[in-house]
C-alpha cells in the first residue's frame, strides 16, 4: 500500500474534477478526520488515516481493500472511476440529472438515459459534462456524461440520448465476477 505518485495524482484528480470540479478540495481537507489516497496494486483507495495504520499491519499479499475504492489504473495508464465511489461523488456533485421511475430499471440494466426518461437536470449543464444520475427520490444510481446541454435537451425527441451512462449501481450485480473487485 503506497501513496499516489505525482502523475497518478494528476490523473485521478483530473478525472474527479469532471464530476465534482473544485470540490476535490473538500475530499482532501476534511474537518472530521484526515483522509488520504492509497494505491493497492492498480486500484486507488480513499481511506481514513487511522484505517491505513491498522492496515499497515497486514501483509501486502493478504490485504485486499481499504476504505473505499475509487477506481483503477488501466493497462495503458488511464484512470477509470468505478461505481464504488458514487457516494462521495454524489455528495459533492455539481451537475445532477434526475430520471423518472419508469426508466430507473433501464438505467440500472446498463442503458443510457433517454429524453423520455429524463425528469430533471441542473440548469446550465454544458455538453460532455460529468453528471451524477439520481432517482426522483434523490438516491444516486450512477454517473455519466451529458450528450446535450440543458438548453438543447428541451428540444430533443423522446428517444434521443441525454446522458451517456458510464457507471451504474447495477454493476454490483452484473459485474460481480468481472474483475470489478478482485
Amino acid at each position, binding site marked *: 500500500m503506497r501513496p499516489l505518485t505525482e502523475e497518478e495524482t494528476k490523473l485521478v484528480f483530473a478525472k474527479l474534477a469532471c464530476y465534482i470540479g473544485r470540490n476535490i478540495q473538500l475530499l482532501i481537507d476534511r474537518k472530521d478526520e484526515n483522509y488520504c489516497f492509497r494505491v493497492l496494486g492498480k486500484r486507488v483507495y480513499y481511506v481514513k488515516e487511522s*484505517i491505513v495504520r491498522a492496515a499497515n*499491519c497486514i501483509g501486502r499479499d493478504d490485504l485486499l481493500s*481499504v476504505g*473505499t475504492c475509487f477506481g483503477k489504473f488501466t493497462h495503458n495508464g488511464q484512470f477509470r472511476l468505478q461505481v464504488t465511489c458514487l457516494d462521495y461523488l454524489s455528495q459533492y456533485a455539481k451537475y445532477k440529472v434526475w430520471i423518472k421511475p419508469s426508466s430507473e430499471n433501464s438505467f440500472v440494466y446498463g442503458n443510457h438515459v433517454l429524453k423520455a426518461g429524463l425528469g430533471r437536470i441542473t440548469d446550465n449543464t454544458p455538453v460532455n459534462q460529468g453528471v451524477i444520475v439520481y432517482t426522483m427520490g434523490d438516491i444516486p444510481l450512477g454517473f455519466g456524461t451529458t450528450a446535450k446541454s440543458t438548453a438543447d435537451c428541451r428540444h430533443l425527441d423522446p428517444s434521443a440520448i441525454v446522458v451517456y451512462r458510464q457507471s451504474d449501481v447495477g454493476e454490483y450485480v452484473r459485474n460481480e465476477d468481472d474483475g470489478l473487485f478482485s
Partner: protein
Amino acid sequence: MSSKRIAIKKGNNSNGGQHKKSVVSKSNVVSKSNVRGRKPVASVAAPSSKKAPPPVDSDDDDDDNDDVPTTKKSLLSSDEEEAQPVARTNNSNIKMKAFSDENASWLKPKTKLPMNESDDDISGDDGEDEDDEDGEGEDSDDEEIDENDADLLPVERRALKEEKKAAKIRAEAEEDFQTSIRQDELMDADDDLGVPDDIDTEETALIDSEGREDALEDIYSRIQETVGIFANFKERRPEGVSRDDLMIRLRRDIKRYFGYSDFLIELYFNLFSPAETLSHLESNETSRPLTIRVNTLKNTRRDLAQILMNKGVNLDPIKWSKVGLVIYESQVPVGATPEYLAGHYMVQSAASFLPVMSLDPQPNEKILDMCAAPGGKTTHIAALMKNTGTLNANDIHKGRLPALVANLHRMGVTNCTVSNLDGRKIPSLPIKFNRVLLDAPCMGLGVVHKDPSVKSSKTEDDMRICTETQRHLILAAIDAVDVSSPEPIIVYSTCSISVEENEEIIAHALKHRWVKVEDSGLEFGAPGIVSFRGKKFHQSIEKSRRYYPHSNNIDGFFVCKLRKIQDGKKEKVQTHKQTADDVEEEDLAEERGGSLLLKANYKQNQAKAAANAPAKKQKKRKQSKKTSGKSNASAKRLKTSTS
C-alpha cells in the same frame, strides 16, 4: 387369439404384398362404407378356400335370417353350384366365407371389411386404420360381441366395448380401494399398531427393507404413528414389539422418507425427542420467510418500509430487531430493486442478526470479523459502528472475497479493511482488537433447506475436520483480543445445531483460555446444552443460545458471548476424570512446540503445576484486584470451578 388371426391372414394373403397392418385391421372392423349399399363381404379369417358367391343385396346386417330362408337357400345353393370365387370387387384378395353344409341356408357368414387397397378408398382407409389400431387390443372382445350380436351396428359394438372397458376399470378401482382399506385397518388395529403380522420382527431388526416397497404416504403415516407411541411409550406401546425394534424401524422410515444419512439421524435422535426430531426434519424441508436488514447508514426502517410498500412489497417489521423486515410477498424482485443496489438494505436471514446483536459493537472501536464473507454481518457491524473506528474483515477463501468487497462498497462502509488471512495467523499480527466476531465454518445443519445435499453428504469425518478448525479458530479469536479494552468480547456463532460444533467448542475455549461465558443479550432462544450423552460442560454455557427452525422459525443457529479476562493460556490440569481431556492436553503441548521432549516434560510440568496451584491462585487474586470489580467476581468463580 389375435395372433392366430394374423397368422392365418398372412397365409391367406400370400399373394398380396399387402401391408400387414391393414391385413389385420381391416378384417376386424366393419367399415361404415360397407354397411349399406355394398354387398357384405365375408372375413378372410375362416380357413376356407371357397369363396361364396355374392349373396343377395341384403342391405344391412340386421336382416333376420329367418325371414328369407328359402330364397336365400335357393340363391345360395344356386350360387354354390357355381361355387367359384367370384372376383366381386376389384381386389382379388377378398375372400368370402360360406358355410358349405346344410346350415348354409340359415347361417349368415361373418361380414368383415374387405381389404380395400384401391386408390379410391385411401382416405377411408386411413380412418379405418386409426380405428382399427385402437381396436386391435380388443380383438377378443370383438369376437365375443360378434358372436353374440352379429347384427349390431358398429357404433353399438364400439359402445359395448367402451362399456366393458369402463366396467373393467371400475372393478380394478374397487379392488384397489379394498386393498387400501385393508392396509388402513392393519394400521389402525389397536393391538398391533403398524407391525403387520406377516413381517417378522426379527426381519425389521435386521434392517433390510428393499423387499417392502411402501408408498411414501404409508411411510409418513407410520412415522407419525411411531412418534405418537414414543410420546407416551408406557401406555401406547404395542404388544410384542420392543422399543429397540420400533426405534430401528422409525429411523429406517425417516431415512427413506426424508433422505438423511445414518450419521445425521443418529445426531438428531441424540439431540431431540422423536416428536421434536420429526418436526425439525419437516421444517428443514421448507424455507424460512425472506428477511432483509435495513442499512442504517443510508436509511431508516420506517422510510424504507414505506418505499418498498409503495412498490408493492408486503412486509412487516421484525419484532425483536430494530433493523429487520420480513417480506411475505413482493411484486418486484427484492434482490434487484434500485434501493437494494443503492445499498439501502441487505437480504439476510434473521438468524444472522443475532451474533452481531450479541457482539454489540460501539462506535470508535477496533473490531475484527474473522470469517466475514459474504459480508452480511460485517456490514451490520459497520452500521452499528456508524462508520467510525476500524473494522477488519477477514476470510480465508479468496474466491469469496469479491462478494465481500462488493457488499461493503454497496452498503457504503468506509471504515473497513479486507484481508485474506488464515484466521489462526491473526493473533501473530501486531494488532489487537476490542471485539471479535467468529462466525465459524460449520456443517450447516441449521440451514439444510438452503443446501439439501447436506442431508446425505455429511459424515463423521466432516464433523471431525470442522470441529478441529473451530477449536483453533476460537482460540485464535480469543488471543486476538486486547484484554485492556473496556469490553473485550468474543462472540462465537455457527449455523449448526450439533453439540460437538457448539457447546464442545466453548468448553474447549473455557479450558484453554481465561475467558468466561457472558449473557448473550438475546431475549429468546433455547439455552445451551450443558449435559449431553455423558459429557458435562461448564454450567455457564447455559447462557449461550440455540435456535431451531421448528421452534423459532429462523435458521438453526448457535450464539455464545465470551469475555476475555486475562491474556495467556491456561496450563492448569483439570483434577476430575481425564477422558478425552488427555488428548486435548496433548494437543496443547503440540501447540506449544510439538516435540516429543516437550510431551515427556509435559507430564512433569503437570505435576509441578498441581504443586504450584496455591501459588498461582494468589497471583490471580493480585491481578484481579488491578482490574475492575466485575472481573474480580469472575476470577473468583473461575477459582471455584477449577479447584
